C-alpha cells in the first residue's frame, strides 16, 4: 500500500516535470522547427511566390549556389567578420573582466556600467549613430585630422577595407561589454584564493591571465563563443543599415543576401532564399558542434 502510494507520487512528480517544460518546448517546435521544415520544403521549389513549383532537378536551388558569385562574396565577408571580430571581442572581454574582478580597483561598478551600456542601444539607433560618426565630414575624421593622424578625410564607408573595418568596430563596440558581463560572472565563481596563490608564486599578470583565467573560464568561453558564432553568421542589421552591403558588395553578409532574395528587390525568390538559409543553418550547427567538442573538458 505504502509502496504504491510512493510510486504514484513519483509518477505525479514526473508528470509535473514534463508539464513545466511542455509549453516552452511546444512553442519552440511550433515557432522554430516547424517553420524551418517549411523553409526546407520551399527550398526545393522555384518560381514566383504565388506560383511555387517543384524544382527540376529537385536540388537545383542548392546546386546553383556554387555558381552564385554574390553569395560566395557574402560568405567570404561573413567568415572574415567571424575570424577577426569574434576572437578580438572575446579576448578583450576576458581582459576587461579580469581587470574589473580586482577587489582593489576603485569605481568598478562605474566602469562595468559604462562598458556594458552600448548593448542597451537599439540596432536601428546604433547603426544611425555610427553612420553619422564615420561620415566623410563626420566626427571621426575631424577628430583624426585634429590630432594630425590623417591629412585628408578618410572615406570610411566608401572603400571596401575601411567599410569592413567600420562594421567590425561597430560590432566590437556593441557586443564587447555584453560578453564581458558573462566573463565577469564566470570569474566571480572562481575562488579568489586561486589568484592570491598565483600572486604569491610571483606569476605575472599575463601568465595568470593565460594559465589561470582562460582555462577556468573555458565553459563560459564555449557559451559566449557559440552565441557569437551564431550571431555573426546571422549578421544582418549592420550590413543593411550601416553600409547597405556596399561598396560593391564588399560588406554584404549572408543573411543580408538572403533577405535581398526573399524580400529586398520586389521579385521574391523564396525557393532560393530558403535554400540559402538552410545552408547557413547547417554552417552554424557545424561550427557550434566543433566549438563544443574543442571546449569539452572531459577528454
Amino acid at each position, binding site marked *: 500500500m505504502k509502496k504504491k502510494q510512493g510510486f504514484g507520487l513519483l509518477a505525479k512528480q514526473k508528470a509535473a516535470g514534463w508539464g513545466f517544460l511542455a509549453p516552452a518546448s511546444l512553442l519552440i517546435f511550433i515557432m522554430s522547427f516547424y517553420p524551418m521544415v517549411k523553409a526546407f520544403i520551399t527550398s526545393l521549389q522555384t518560381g514566383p511566390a504565388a506560383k511555387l513549383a517543384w524544382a527540376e532537378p529537385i536540388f537545383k536551388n542548392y546546386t546553383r549556389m556554387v555558381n552564385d558569385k554574390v553569395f560566395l562574396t557574402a560568405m567570404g565577408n561573413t567568415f572574415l567578420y567571424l575570424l577577426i571580430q569574434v576572437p578580438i571581442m572575446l579576448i578583450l572581454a576576458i581582459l576587461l573582466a579580469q581587470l574589473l574582478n580586482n577587489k582593489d580597483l576603485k569605481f568598478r561598478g562605474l566602469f562595468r556600467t559604462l562598458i556594458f551600456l552600448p548593448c542597451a542601444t537599439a540596432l536601428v539607433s546604433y547603426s544611425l549613430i555610427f553612420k553619422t560618426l564615420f561620415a566623410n565630414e563626420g566626427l571621426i575624421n*575631424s577628430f583624426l585630422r585634429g590630432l594630425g593622424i590623417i591629412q585628408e578625410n578618410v572615406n570610411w564607408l566608401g572603400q571596401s577595407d575601411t567599410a569592413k573595418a567600420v562594421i567590425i568596430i561597430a560590432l566590437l563596440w556593441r557586443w564587447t561589454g555584453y560578453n564581458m558581463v558573462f566573463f565577469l560572472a564566470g570569474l566571480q565563481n572562481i575562488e579568489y584564493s586561486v589568484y592570491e596563490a598565483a600572486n604569491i608564486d610571483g606569476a605575472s599578470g599575463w601568465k595568470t591571465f593565460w594559465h589561470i583565467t582562460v582555462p577556468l573560464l573555458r565553459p563560459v568561453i564555449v557559451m559566449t563563443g557559440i552565441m557569437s558564432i551564431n550571431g555573426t553568421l546571422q549578421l544582418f542589421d549592420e550590413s543593411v543599415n550601416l553600409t547597405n552591403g556596399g561598396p560593391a558588395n564588399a560588406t554584404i553578409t549572408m543573411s543580408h543576401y538572403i533577405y535581398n532574395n*526573399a524580400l529586398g528587390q520586389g521579385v521574391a525568390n523564396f525557393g532560393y532564399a530558403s535554400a540559402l538559409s538552410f545552408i547557413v543553418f547547417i554552417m552554424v550547427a557545424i561550427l557550434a558542434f566543433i566549438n563544443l567538442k574543442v571546449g569539452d573538458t572531459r577528454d
Partner: protein
Amino acid sequence: MTERTSRKPAVSHIQRKLIPSYIFLTIMSLISVFPLYWMFTAATNTSLEVAQGKIWFGSNLAENYRNLIDGQNLWQAMGNSFFYAFVQTLATLLICSLAGYGFELYHDKGKDKLFAVLLLAMMVPQVATLIPLFTMVSKMKMLNTVWAFIIPGLATPFMIMMFRQNSRNFPIDTMEAARIDGLSEVGIFFRMYFPMMKSTYAASAVIVFMNSWNAYMWPRTVMKGNTVQTMPMLIANMSNGYAVDYGMLMLGVLFCSLPTIIVFFVLQKQFAEGITGSVK
C-alpha cells in the same frame, strides 16, 4: 600607529600598480560612452549641424522636440513599445523559467535529450522563418495584435538555458521538505522557487526587455498602421524620407534608447547576480 603607517604605503603601492588598469578602463569607458554622448548632443542641434559633425550641445532641442511631436506619434509609439515589451517580458519569463526549472530539477535522460534538441533552435536563421511565421500568425488571426508581437519570442533556448543553469543553486532538499509539508509541485514553483530566484528573473527581465524593445524586423512584418507601431519602427520611418531632419531624428533615437538604459541602470545589481548564477 605602527599598523597605520605600514598599511598606508601598501595601499598606495597597490593603487600605483593598478594605474595601467585605470588608464585602460578609462579609455574603454570613453569609447563606449562617446557614441552615446554624440547621440545626446546631436539631439540638441539642427539638421545641418548634425550633418557637419558638430560635437557640442546646441540650442535646437526645443525645436526638435516640437517637430517630433507635431510630425510623429511619439508618445503613442513609446506607449506601444512599453506595452509590448512589458507583456513579452512577463510571458517569456514565466514560460522559460517554468521550462528551466523543469529541465533542471526534474531532469532525466529524456528531458536532457529534448533540451539538446531545443538548443538547435538557437541556430535557426530569422530570415528563413520570417515568411512561414507570418503565414502562421495570419492564419491564427493575430496580425496587428500584441500576440503576434510576442509569440515567436515566448520561448527561446537562451532563456531556458539561463534559468536551467541558475536552477542548480536551488536546494533539492527544500523541495523534498516542501513536498512532505504537502505543497504541490506547482506550489513549490510559485511559493519557493520564484522568490528565491529573484536575481535570475531580474537579469532575464533586462535581457528580454531590451531585445523586445529593440526588435525591428518581426514587428514591422506583423504590425501595420500608426496605432500599433513601435519606437524602432518610428525611427526607421523618420530616417528614410527624401529630406531627413537629423536633429529631430537623433532626438527620436534618444527617446528610443533611454528606456533600455534606464531599465539596465535600475536592475544592474540583480542583473550581475543573475548572470553570475547562469555561468556556474
